[in-house]
């Protein structure tokens, strides 16, 4: 086992899968010789050649659209969108084509494309290098949505995503790209999509988080523990389909829920979690489900620290919920 950060783990996953399966190809802006602006594809073109790892022209619709064609031919493209903020030119291809291809062809075609994109704030990136667009894709039937929080999961989930026969949106927490480090096994292993992980255990409150916010939530949960409040902290890992069992088991135990994400609140993924939990476990709830989220604004530059949930804010939420 080697210690890796998330970038290295992603790079390793791509390498492992490209070794194993020659149908896997990597494409996107600056991913070839340069190895990606975050270096997630570094060394891959050297290793696998320019037919399997290549730069594309600057057009996200073209990247996703041609990846769909490649997948229909039997390849397993893993396109990179340089920042999740730049995924919208490809939105039509993702929502109207990629997501619907299996269904609309009566299951005759499959579209195993994994779209990787760094997402989220905290890097002083302003409007266009900080967005968390996951809710758009969770609302889009036909896609799976995965967001790892640490290197081990990043590798294991990316391998699963590449092997999955359906399209997967794979958002990587850029703020934690280098900051989150951990032991990562060499070679192949996979973490099934759809399974959450319990990161902390406690019976007073359930905290649901994913991606970069998992770290914030963990800090808050640890602060709460120091104050004598025990929380279950669940790292959702897959947002669609999300792990309803893990969530309900915990909620039925704690009766209290705090959801953390950095995307805007209104119609964010937290809304779905909250609605589903109260549909399925209302009588277990002892306090309103709290959402600690980004604000309903474009992502600000100067005040990103006010916008982004931090441990203090999550802790305040936990305390409020527990005291309710």
């Amino acid at each position, binding site marked *: 086992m080697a210690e890796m950060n998330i970038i290295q783990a992603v790079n390793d996953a791509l390498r492992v899968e490209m070794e194993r399966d020659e149908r896997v*190809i990597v494409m996107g802006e600056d991913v070839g010789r340069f190895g990606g602006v975050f270096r997630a594809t570094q060394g891959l073109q050297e290793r696998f050649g320019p*037919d*399997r790892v290549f730069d*594309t*022209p600057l*057009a996200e*619709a*073209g990247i*996703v*659209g*041609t*990846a*769909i*064609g*490649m*997948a*229909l*031919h*039997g*390849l397993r*493209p893993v396109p990179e969108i340089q920042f999740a903020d730049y995924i919208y*030119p490809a939105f*039509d*291809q993702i929502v*109207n*084509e990629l997501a619907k*291809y*299996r*269904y*609309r*062809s*009566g*299951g*005759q*075609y*499959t579209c195993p494309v994994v779209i990787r994109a760094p997402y989220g704030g905290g890097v002083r990136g302003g409007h266009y290098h900080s967005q968390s667009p996951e809710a758009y894709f969770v609302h889009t*039937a*036909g896609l*799976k949505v995965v967001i790892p929080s640490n290197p081990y999961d990043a590798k294991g989930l990316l391998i699963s995503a590449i092997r*999955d*026969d*359906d399209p997967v949106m794979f958002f990587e927490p850029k703020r934690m790209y280098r900051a989150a480090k951990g032991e990562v096994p060499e070679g192949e292993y996979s973490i099934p999509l*759809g399974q959450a992980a319990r990161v902390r255990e406690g019976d007073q409150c359930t905290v649901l988080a994913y991606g970069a916010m998992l770290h914030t939530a963990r800090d808050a949960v640890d602060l709460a523990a120091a104050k004598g409040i025990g929380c279950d902290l669940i790292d959702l890992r897959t947002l*669609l*389909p999300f792990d*309803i069992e893990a969530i309900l088991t915990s909620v039925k135990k704690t009766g209290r829920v705090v959801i953390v994400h950095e995307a805007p609140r209104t119609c964010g993924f937290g809304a779905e979690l909250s609605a589903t939990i109260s549909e399925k476990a209302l009588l277990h709830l002892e306090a309103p489900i709290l959402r600690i989220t980004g604000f309903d604004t474009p992502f600000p530059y100067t005040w990103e620290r006010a916008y982004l949930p931090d441990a203090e804010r999550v802790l305040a939420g936990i305390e409020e919920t527990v005291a309710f």
Partner: protein
Amino acid sequence: MKAAVAVEEKLVRVLGDGGRVDQGKDPGLADRDLLTLYRTMLLNRLVDERMFRLQRQGRIAFYIGSAGEEAAIIGAAFALEDRDWVVPCYREFGAAYLRGFPLRDFFCQVFGNADDLIRGRQMPVHIASPRLHLLSVSSPVGTQIPHAVGLAMAARIRKLKEVTLVFFGEGATSEGDFHVSMNFAGVFKAPCVFLCRNNQWAISVPGTKQTAAESIDIKARAYGFEGIRVDGNDVLAVYTTTRKAVEKARSGGGPTLIEAFTYRQGPHSTSDDPRSYRGEEEVEEWKKKDPIARFRQYLEARKLWDEDRDMTLARELNDQILSTLKEVENIGPPPPETAVEDVYAEIPWHLREQREEIIRRAARQRQSWPR
């Protein structure tokens, strides 16, 4: 509208007046092939006519036809081999049929019934067949073009000598998807042939309001490859031009854009009434240039065809259409719970719940669900 006459002078053309052909240009197809082309074009026309009638009778919800564009569609598809790929727009039933798409499957799709290969998921004409290397028809304009380029790139990456032929209208050239795909195709030298059916109308919008370019073919130069303009009502010209482009693509020469200049004789679809936006004279003028009639003249001049045979064939085809229709019209819909299948390879928990809900309701409520 653009001055069609001046513009037509630049077109690649094989079939002249009265069935005459410049010998040097004749592709020299075997008689069998010529008759296959003719038979397919006629079938396409007759199917369209039947479907329009069915729609007016309320037996199907919607239809979109190819009248006037059969030469462009079928002539181009005929230039392919089986291993090649067709990426259709929504008027390419003729191309699919030519490649072996059964009439029965087509009608089941139009009815969206239990035998429909796509399980009743899409509006009529939205066929798909991996077996025939035919991608899935999608209603959004232009979205299929990048798929075609991706297929072609995949063939290149995998060192397979397959060529992709993609169809779209001149309206589609205005979308971003056209541009990004053409640009990718140029950069990656994708073995892809772009067939733009310039039928001069995008619903109510004429070609002159679609682009200020003098023609569509010249747009290829912006992407570093060749564009050719062909008489889209001349099946042999379309065939020869596409054939050349396909061979060029197969031998590593990269993509070609073909503009098949033609005309949409009918309404945009059964939902449309073109009388409020274009004159009858224009339509009549173009009906005189009908691609099927023109090709028949050629076959007659070559003594391969005559009026008798034509009437016999039309009767045969109509009989086949009617008997196939009869065979499938009363096949019921697929079970309602199939509506939540095939979203993913495996059904996740939330769709399992929704599937169960449909099954429960179906038991209770099905009578009150009109189709």
